[in-house]
């Protein structure tokens, strides 16, 4: 069996729909605030770690688990526009 075909076994059709139904809307203002705080840390860390960009990536990744790409992108945009 192709590995991707096993995806079909991950929960029934009905259960997957219920999970979407029960999740509810993302609270965008709250996510934006959280993302901005994480990105502020991201901005500060290169100086602390001698411009080690890889070491500074973790906080943003943690926040990304609960936010959509749009939220992260908008947070990044705001971050980049700061003086």
């Amino acid at each position, binding site marked *: 069996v192709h590995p991707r075909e096993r995806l079909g076994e991950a929960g029934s059709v*009905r259960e997957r729909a219920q999970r*979407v139904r029960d999740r509810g809307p993302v609270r965008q203002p709250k996510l934006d605030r959280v993302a901005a705080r994480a990105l502020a840390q991201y901005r500060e860390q290169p100086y602390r770690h001698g411009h080690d960009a890889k070491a500074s990536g973790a906080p943003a990744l943690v926040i990304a688990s609960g936010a*959509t790409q749009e939220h992260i992108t908008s947070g990044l945009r705001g971050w980049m526009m700061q003086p």
Partner: protein
Amino acid sequence: VSSGDGERGSVVGAVLAGGQSARMGRPKPLVELCGSPLICYPLGAIEAAGLEPLVVAKPDSELPRLSCRVAREPEHPSHPLVGIVAALRAAVRPAVVIACDMPFVPPAMLSWLAGLDERLAVCELKGRLHPLLGLYDPSLVRDLEAALARGESATDASRALDARLIGAGELHRFGDPARICFNVNTPEDLEEARTLLATH
């Protein structure tokens, strides 16, 4: 011939929900199927497939409360290609497109579609194309807009753009092709979907 194992970065799973629901008589995304709004079914498959969910709908389309990104397509015209173009413009990446009224598309099939190398691939069953279940590359936007301007159907546009056709032979890997391509257009279809779900 691509196998569906290609690497093309993240792919969006776009659920088209801007239809008029004329035959159903009420907004299809909200129609309840075994306790959940109909649109939650393709969204659940997209999430299980690991694609980034995106819903595309008209400005006045009624939707349930959703946790994913929603893009609004132009109010006019009412045409499937409008939703597909809006999805590609919002995604700026390849998009696996699925209609909001297709509750039985398996996640494995969506994942496989996302891995294809073609710019355009749509399902075909019994000689009928299903352009609202396929893979679209963002480089198609101008061609699709031109097709829209010429008044072409999504089916004609798919043929003209030399879409890879995914037939029953390939769909069989993921389940009953008729069930995969089943869509809920009428109250009778909804009843049939309930029956199918009871046996799933």
